[in-house]
């Protein structure tokens, strides 16, 4: 495909290695690098005159799958890959509307034919469901001028409007592929912009939620949270209780940062949450990932805080960026999406090495160190995203807006 490809392959390999070695971590960094890499892939991809969108989609999918496999815990990678695929499909669809109609219905029936052989070809159920949805939906703009079945009838309706475009169709193809690439890259640039700047978008809403002399409880450390609280500090004075977030004790670092910004901070242990929650007005936390049903994956201990908040009727607010919204459902969250870290963070090896004796039928002492917690949607009051504040039951709309159902199962 050209001299650029080996460089691109090297870049992708390098990124995958970094992901595997956990040298790149955190949803924002991984999302940013994924988007950058995919933008490179798209700009280097040569597009044939026909089936333009599907070539791009295949290229992005193959690179995306490799990146997702490198670190399955970072859901942000999969989210960005799906966002890019959605951008490609949307730009393709909008170019169809401007151009000649009549070809797009074929893509519809292609999906359907795939659906007919569910058992044999193993096409995912989600793709079939998507095909059903698009078949049953109200006809959109590009379906208005429809293809008429060739039963000998003359096509008297429709083509009169498109006649001038029909003539220049062949020369259009090349400029169309350029247009597609260009608009997709623009879309990806917008996505990159959103990912890098979501902190400030979320922080802008801080004044609406934090009021004078309130007591806020939080847990762990989150960049978004820091910006949010600092933004509110500019105009309001309030107090913050921080759970230290064992075993990493991120809360200590956040407490220091907030105290330096002249905010009254109190550090408490995770176990003290229930004792202190009655004095708190609101709980605000960041999230690692948000699932399609509104559930949140956050640092370990978050579920306890959520339960305490529910018990004392304290609003539980989650700050998140749209790139953290994953279109999948958590079938078995406690097993599937948790990261078991090294037990040395909890127990020092030297202290307990004699209990770890293997000869008498396995170690008697075990230390489990999960990194994440799943909070079910019933415990969450509000999501504050870069597109505004939303109810957990509204997330399905955001998922439908930013992702295509064909991409749910990659």
């Amino acid at each position: 495909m050209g001299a650029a490809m080996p460089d691109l392959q090297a870049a992708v390999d390098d990124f995958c290695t970094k992901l595997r070695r956990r040298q790149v971590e955190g949803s924002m960094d991984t999302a940013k690098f994924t988007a950058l890499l995919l933008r490179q892939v798209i700009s280097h991809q040569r597009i044939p005159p026909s089936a333009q969108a599907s070539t791009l989609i295949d290229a992005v999918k193959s690179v995306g799958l490799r990146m997702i496999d490198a670190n399955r815990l970072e859901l942000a990678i999969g989210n960005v890959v799906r966002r890019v695929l959605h951008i490609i499909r949307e730009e393709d669809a909008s170019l169809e509307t401007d151009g000649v109609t009549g070809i797009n219905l074929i893509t519809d029936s292609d999906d359907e034919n795939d659906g007919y052989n569910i058992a044999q070809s193993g096409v995912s159920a989600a793709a079939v469901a998507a095909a059903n949805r698009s078949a049953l939906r109200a006809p959109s703009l590009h379906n208005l001028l429809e293809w008429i079945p060739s039963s000998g009838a003359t096509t008297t309706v429709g083509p009169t409007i498109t006649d001038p475009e029909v003539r220049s169709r062949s020369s259009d193809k090349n400029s169309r592929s350029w247009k597609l690439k260009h608009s997709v890259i623009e879309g990806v640039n917008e996505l990159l912009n959103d990912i890098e700047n979501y902190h400030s978008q979320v922080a802008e809403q801080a004044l609406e939620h934090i009021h004078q002399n309130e007591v806020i409880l939080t847990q762990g450390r989150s960049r978004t949270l820091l910006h949010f609280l600092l933004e509110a500090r500019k105009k309001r004075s309030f107090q913050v209780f921080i759970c230290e977030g064992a075993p990493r004790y991120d809360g200590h670092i956040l407490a220091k940062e907030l105290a330096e910004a002249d905010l009254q901070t109190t550090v408490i242990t995770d176990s003290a949450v229930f004792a202190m929650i009655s004095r708190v007005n609101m709980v605000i936390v960041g999230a690692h990932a948000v699932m399609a049903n509104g559930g949140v994956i956050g640092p370990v201990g978050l579920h306890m805080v959520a339960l305490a908040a529910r018990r004392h009727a304290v609003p539980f607010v989650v700050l998140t960026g749209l790139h953290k919204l994953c279109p999948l459902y958590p079938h078995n969250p406690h097993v599937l999406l948790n990261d078991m870290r090294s037990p040395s963070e909890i127990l020092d090896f030297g202290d307990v090495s004699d209990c770890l004796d293997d000869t008498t039928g396995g170690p008697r002492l075990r230390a489990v160190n999960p990194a994440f917690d799943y909070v079910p949607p019933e415990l969450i009051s509000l999501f504050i995203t870069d597109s505004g504040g939303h109810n957990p039951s509204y997330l399905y709309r955001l998922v439908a807006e930013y992702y295509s159902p064909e991409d749910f199962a990659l």
Partner: protein
Amino acid sequence: MKSEEEISRRRGEVSGAVTYEWLTQAEAARFHKDPDNFKPLRASSLVGQQQQRLSDEREGLFSVIDEFNLWRSKPELAEAVAAIKALTAVIQRSEATTMMGLEIDLKKASEALKAWDETSISLSAGCDLFMRYVTRTSALEYEDIVAGKARLIERGEKFGEISLKARQTIALLGKDFVQDGSTILTHGCSRVVLALLKLAASNGKHFHVICTEGRPKNSGVEMANQLLSAKIPVSLIIDSAIAYTMEKVDMVLVGADGVVESGGIINMIGTYQAALVAHSMSKPVYVAAESYKFARMYPLDQRDLPLAPCYVHFPGALPESVIAEVSTRDYTPPKYLTLLFTDLGVLTPSAVSDELIQLYL
């Protein structure tokens, strides 16, 4: 003269350019004006015309019902899918020469099918959706009836295919939610739930199913038999034992007679109970329903449902003054449901009304 009963029964009926009520009033006026020389206006010619038209309609109607029964004879086919296939056949056999005529034929056939079983929500929802889907096309503006008809038939067949494959799609989507080693409670005998569980079992998942007895129709035994034939371990419990067994249940999986606008479901009586108990014990409640069951209704309480009574047998003689509750359906509000598996994807209850709007507009 004309009894109140007859007037209310035939209210709105039109013969010629006037309604039946107008006719009766006009006749009554004439009678009072001149009682001795009164001759009823319903001359044989008028009656004859009406009767002719009625019998014509019945002729066409019979073929729809016949077609419907033909499709229904296949045991695996859902009622609504059979209705959809029958309506597609109506388009094919219609002799209308204009698109409006075709639409009217379809409407009449749809009414006839709905009247065949007035208590079935999925049947009427399926017919309504079919009508909306098929007629919502620019083909209606074509002057050429042949092309327009071909387009309508194509859309009708597409809808029929989607509905036919719906159970398969739902089974594929829902099988991942069945965990290995879990216990599933189910209520009522739903073919969609059966398909889902059979697919999960054939994929090597091991799980245990608890079926409720399902009075008054005793559907639990039927369900248990079907599951046993697929080698899935089954327990049977009486309906009152739902709360007792709920602590060892991991999830509740039910089908639906209809899915309503709020995202709630209408299903066999006892589903609401199971959902309430599950909710209080934090167990997820999953519903497997095809998209043609989405109905444009919004029940506010249990009395808002269309009546579907059946005879309930109580052992021992019941004194006459005791009124037995004979309803066979209840409404489960959306807050007790976790997720709905449909052939349009896995939906949260709040997403259902969104999808309904997309289907109906």
